[in-house]
């Protein structure tokens, strides 16, 4: 079994934290992993992505092939569409619905949402609003991970939930608790 995932967003939105949690879960489950990250210049408010490959067999390439991704997880709707040609025919797109507008020529919002919603397998949610309503504004990325959890399949939601505890353990019990709540919030929203 394999899962090729593309994580997308804007620099500073926290996609590397999502990658870290999935990576930790894979390491604990004995699932092979390769995860290519973007560091350096592009982190300054530009588009960022991470290729995450999970497999029960050995993995060669650090990069996902075009048309081969099983899942796109995006913190931003336009960024979800940026990698569409990487998605396979049965692939899911799980994305935040809230545009991050830091460019003057951001596309028409309605047209953008229409294109995103027209995909055959897509889950879109205003994760930032949901996180804010539940007093966890900094955990929107973990809400998104919760939303994506059922589609990761090679790792169970329970395994990912345990990894949240490990990854945030150095920041104290309260931070772990809030992020696990954020995860559950996302998970329940798509159930």
């Amino acid at each position, binding site marked *: 079994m394999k899962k090729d995932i593309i994580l997308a967003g804007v620099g500073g939105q926290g996609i590397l934290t999502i990658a870290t949690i999935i990576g930790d879960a894979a390491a604990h489950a004995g699932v092979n992993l390769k995860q*290519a*990250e973007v560091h*350096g*210049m592009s982190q*300054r408010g530009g588009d960022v992505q991470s290729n995450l490959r999970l497999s029960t067999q050995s993995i060669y*390439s650090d990069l996902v*092939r075009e048309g081969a991704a099983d899942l796109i997880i995006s913190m931003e709707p336009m960024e979800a569409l940026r990698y*569409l040609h990487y998605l396979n025919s049965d692939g899911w797109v799980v994305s935040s619905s809230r545009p991050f507008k830091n460019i003057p020529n951001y596309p028409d919002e309605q047209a953008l949402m229409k294109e995103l919603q027209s995909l055959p397998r897509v889950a879109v949610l205003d994760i930032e609003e949901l996180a804010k309503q539940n007093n966890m504004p900094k955990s929107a990325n973990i809400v998104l991970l919760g939303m994506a959890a059922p589609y990761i399949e090679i790792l169970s939601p329970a395994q990912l939930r345990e990894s949240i505890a490990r990854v945030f353990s150095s*920041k*104290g019990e309260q931070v772990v608790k809030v992020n696990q709540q954020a995860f559950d919030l996302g998970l329940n929203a798509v159930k």
Partner: protein
Amino acid sequence: MIEKKLLLGDEAIALGAIHAGISGVYAYPGTPSTEITEFIQLHAPEVRSRWSSNEKTAMEAALGMSYAGKRALVCMKHVGMNVAADAFVNSAITGINGGLVVLAADDPSMHSSQNEQDSRFYGKFAMIPILEPSSQQEAYDMMPFAYALSEEHKLPVLMRVVTRLAHSRADVEVKAPLQQKVLSPDSERTHWVLLPGNARRQYASLVEKQPALQASAETSPYNIGATKSCSKAKLGVVACGIAYNYVMENDPASLGIPVVKVSHYPLPVSAIKAFAEQCDKILVAEDGQPVVEEQIGALLGGDYKLCGRLTGDLPRTGELTPDSVGRALGVVSTPTFVAAQNVMPRPPALCQGCGHRDVYNALNKVASEYADARIFGDIGCYTLGALPPFRAIDSCVDMGASITMAKGAADAGLHPAIAVIGDSTFTHSGMTGLLDAVNDGSAITVIISDNLTTAMTGGQDSAGTNKFEAICLGLGVKPEHVRVVVPLPKNMEEITQIIREEIEYRGVSVIIPRRECIQTLNRKLRQQKAKQE
């Protein structure tokens, strides 16, 4: 039990070096190499690891540690090799005492760089062994191997990685660490004093070592020859370093395509010649420039069918991908979804609240008052001042070039000639250029935009913090023309006035806008808050 760790390629290199018993790492931050030194700083207090001022000082210090008998590591991004080149090339002439590994992290596709030069050329130029790992595990395993190889041949070893290996994470099996070596300074002065008489002997000795280097590459565990086959293959692949992964991803065995893997140079020519006889045609898959393709072309002659980046079978520029390699192997993938309509480029930008923003706002305001004003930029976050909304800089070439290019343009009669350089870039390569300008009395205005850190690479210590006024005065800039300001919107009037005054002064002026990087400041505040809680 075997211990496994999830590591970035850079971290695997760092841990491999720690476990190989290095006593010091010397480096200047540069994407994608920075995380190697950061990992050592965090996890190996017994290893000397403070940042160096630039790649040349790093290379020389590491050579000194090797001279003293201990194992040393030097890390840099590919363009840092240009800065270190004098010391690097001559370290092959002196040879080494304690093992010395030079790690160059290349950046094909220029994710964070101004060119995609291939460091393997440097290794070949210096006539030393080169290792090029294809995976994080190999990166880790190769470090003790590299140190043993270095000490066996008494030469530095170049290890070359690319961004996709440096910044990709995978499981790595780790082994027991080796002890650091004891102090045992070399006493062979004829090796180390490169007067022409000695240098000629040393160079002859380097040439004499080449057959042994060749033999070690031919039998290297990191070069894998193709298994003998009775029938001739239509196509065979020579895959170098990370390109091996992209080839294997396309399952060449199922296509009847044999593969030779090269991760240890000099090129294993015997293996390549034997392979060429088994195949009608060879594809060379290598990330970066066509270093191996050119060598194999010369080896097999013009009649042999060879393809790769030079023939257009693989793209001439940019990093390889499993898709581009697949196409060269005849694997056609047709994505289900075409590229989306509603997508625009999203270039990086200076952070909100960043002091460089205020510097560019002030500079743009004053520069608009002069018809011929030119602003020479440099390498760092502030290079983003080239993009909208600022569009403030006219050049960005290499570390330190802002000051010296402004000087040359001023010497030609251009006025005002303004240089913008960051604090860390100034101590890396700006100081010597400033001395030239002072000695020549060039009419330039130098802005040292000081945010108290090396920000672009993630906030490493900057070598000159708290020393800039003293450095400028020491180099001979007149005290009344060293001006310090705080780049904030409320100070805009004062800053623009000072810039005007210094432009009008027809000599060397230095203006230092100083305010901490917003990223490192926020990080510190978060850490303080966490401590209080």
